[in-house]
C-alpha cells in the first residue's frame, strides 16, 4: 500500500467510506426486511395472546408449543371474539388493538396523553377470557407478557417473554414450569387488588395453595422476578376500573 495510512486525509476518507458502506448495508437491510420482520412479530403476538388463554399445542409437561404460524390467523379470529381499546372513559372495539405498542403508549402517558389500553376478549367452550397485555423491565432489558382472567378474576393462563434476560436464569420466565404456576391464582385478596407476587420466600414450592397471591420464584433470578411482580401490578392497576365492572357483573 503506497498510501500513507496515518495521514489525516486518509483517515477521514476511510471513516467516511466506512460510514457510507455500513450505513447503506444496514439501511437497505432494515428497509427490505422490515415487512417480513413485522409480519413475524404480528403472528407471534397472536400466538402469545392465544397461548395465554390456553389455546396452544402443548403436549407434555416440558415445552411451550404455540399454535403453528400458518393456523394462527384463523384461530385468532375464531377464539378472540372482541378486541377493545380503553381510552380514558371511552371503550371502542378495534380489530387491530393487538398491534398497539404498549411501550409507546406508556411513554405517551408519561407526557400527559391518555393511554390507550388494549384488551382482548376470548371465548373457548362457552367460557369468557379477559386477556390483558403487560410490559415491564427485568434485569437487563424489557419483559412483557399476557395474562388471561376469567369472570371471577382468577388467572387462566399467562405468557411471559423477554428481550435479553440472563440465559439459564431470568430467561426461564418463558418456560412452562414458571408460567404454569400462575394458572389458578387469583389477583384479589379479601376483595382488594393485590396482583400476583413472585415470591422468593415461599413455603409452597409445589404451588398447591392458589389463593395466596404468590408463585414460587426462579432461583437466581431475583431482579427478573421482581420485574414480573411489578409488571403484573402496574398493568392490572391500569385496567382496574374495567376489571371491577367485570367482577361486579358476576
Amino acid at each position, binding site marked *: 500500500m503506497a498510501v500513507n495510512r496515518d495521514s489525516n486525509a486518509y483517515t477521514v476518507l476511510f471513516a467516511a467510506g466506512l460510514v457510507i458502506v*455500513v450505513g447503506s448495508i*444496514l439501511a437497505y437491510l*432494515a428497509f427490505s426486511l422490515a415487512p417480513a420482520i413485522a409480519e413475524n412479530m404480528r403472528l407471534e403476538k397472536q400466538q402469545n395472546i392465544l397461548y395465554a388463554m390456553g389455546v396452544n399445542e402443548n403436549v407434555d409437561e416440558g415445552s411451550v408449543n404455540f399454535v403453528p404460524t400458518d393456523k394462527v390467523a384463523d384461530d385468532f379470529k375464531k377464539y378472540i371474539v372482541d378486541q*377493545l381499546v380503553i381510552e380514558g*372513559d*371511552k*371503550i371502542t372495539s378495534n380489530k387491530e388493538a393487538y398491534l398497539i*405498542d404498549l*411501550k*409507546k403508549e406508556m411513554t405517551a402517558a408519561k407526557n400527559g396523553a391518555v393511554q390507550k389500553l388494549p384488551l382482548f376478549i376470548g371465548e373457548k367452550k362457552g367460557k369468557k377470557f379477559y386477556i390483558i397485555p403487560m410490559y415491564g*423491565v427485568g*434485569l*437487563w*432489558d*424489557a419483559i412483557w407478557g399476557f395474562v388471561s382472567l376469567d369472570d371471577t378474576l382468577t388467572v387462566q393462563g399467562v405468557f411471559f417473554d423477554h*428481550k*435479553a434476560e440472563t440465559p439459564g436464569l431470568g430467561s426461564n420466565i418463558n418456560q412452562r414450569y414458571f408460567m404454569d404456576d400462575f394458572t389458578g391464582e387469583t389477583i384479589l385478596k379479601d*376483595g*382488594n*387488588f*393485590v*396482583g400476583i*407476587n413472585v415470591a422468593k420466600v415461599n413455603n409452597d414450592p409445589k404451588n398447591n395453595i392458589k389463593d395466596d397471591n404468590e408463585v414460587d420464584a426462579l432461583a437466581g433470578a*431475583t431482579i427478573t422476578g*421482581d420485574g414480573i411482580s*411489578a409488571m403484573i*401490578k402496574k398493568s392490572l*392497576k391500569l385496567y382496574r*376500573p*374495567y376489571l*371491577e*365492572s*367485570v367482577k*361486579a*357483573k358476576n
Partner: protein
Amino acid sequence: MLEHIELFFKSIFIDNMVFAVFLGMCSYLAVSKKVATAVGLGAAVIFVLAVTVPLNWLLDKYLLQDGALAWLGPEYADYNLSFLSFILFIATIATMVQLVEIVVEKFSPSLYNSLGIFLPLIAVNCAILGGSLFMQAREIASFGLALNYGISSGIGWFLAILAIAAIREKIRYSNVPPPLRGLGITFIITGLMGIGFQSFGGMLTGGDEEPEEVGKTTVEKIPAKTKTIEEDQSTGREDKKTEEIDEKSVSYINVIKE
C-alpha cells in the same frame, strides 16, 4: 433530588457493574495487580462513562427511539431506528475514547503517560457499553439522571477494581498454593466479594414499600366504586373524581353486556 440520591447509591452498590452484573471483568482482572494502575484505569472509566452515557442518552432520545425523530416534523414520527443502537453507542464510545486520548496527549503529557496505555483498553470494556445499554433499557428519564448514572456506575467500577487491587497487593504475603497464584486466586476472591455484594440487594429496594401503597389505594377506592356499580350510578357524588369513575363504570358495564 431524592431520585438522584437513590440512583447514585443504587448504581454504586446494588447494581455494581462488577459484582452485581459482572460487566467489565476482563480489564478488572487483567489490570488489578497494582493499586496505582488500578486507580488510573478506574478514573478513566469514570470519565468515559460520565461522558458517553449522557451523550448516548441524547442520541437515544432524539434519534434512535421509536418515534424519536418526531422533532424533525410529523412525517418522521413513524421511523424506528432502534436497531442501530448498538452500532451508534459503540461508535460514540470508541470515538470518545480516541478523542480523550488525543486531547490528553496534547494538553497534559504527564497524565497521558500515567493513563496512556489504559485508554484504548476502555473501548473494549463492556462496562462502558453496558452503561449505555442499561440507560436505554431502564428508560432513564432525564439528562441529569443519565449523567448521574454514568458517574455513579463508574464510581462503582472504580471501587471494585481498587478493592481487588489492594487485596492482590496484600495477598502477595500469603502462602497461596502455587497453581492458584495470580489469576486463580483473583477469580475466587472476586467470587466471594460478589457473594458479599449480593447482600446489598436488600438495600433501598427493600420489599414491602410498594405493595403497601397499592394496598392503601385499593382500600380507599374500592368500596366507593363497587358500591356505585352495585347500586345506582346516578346517586349524587360530592367528589368530581368519583363522578368520573361512575361514568366509566357505566360505559364498561354496557360494553360487557353487549
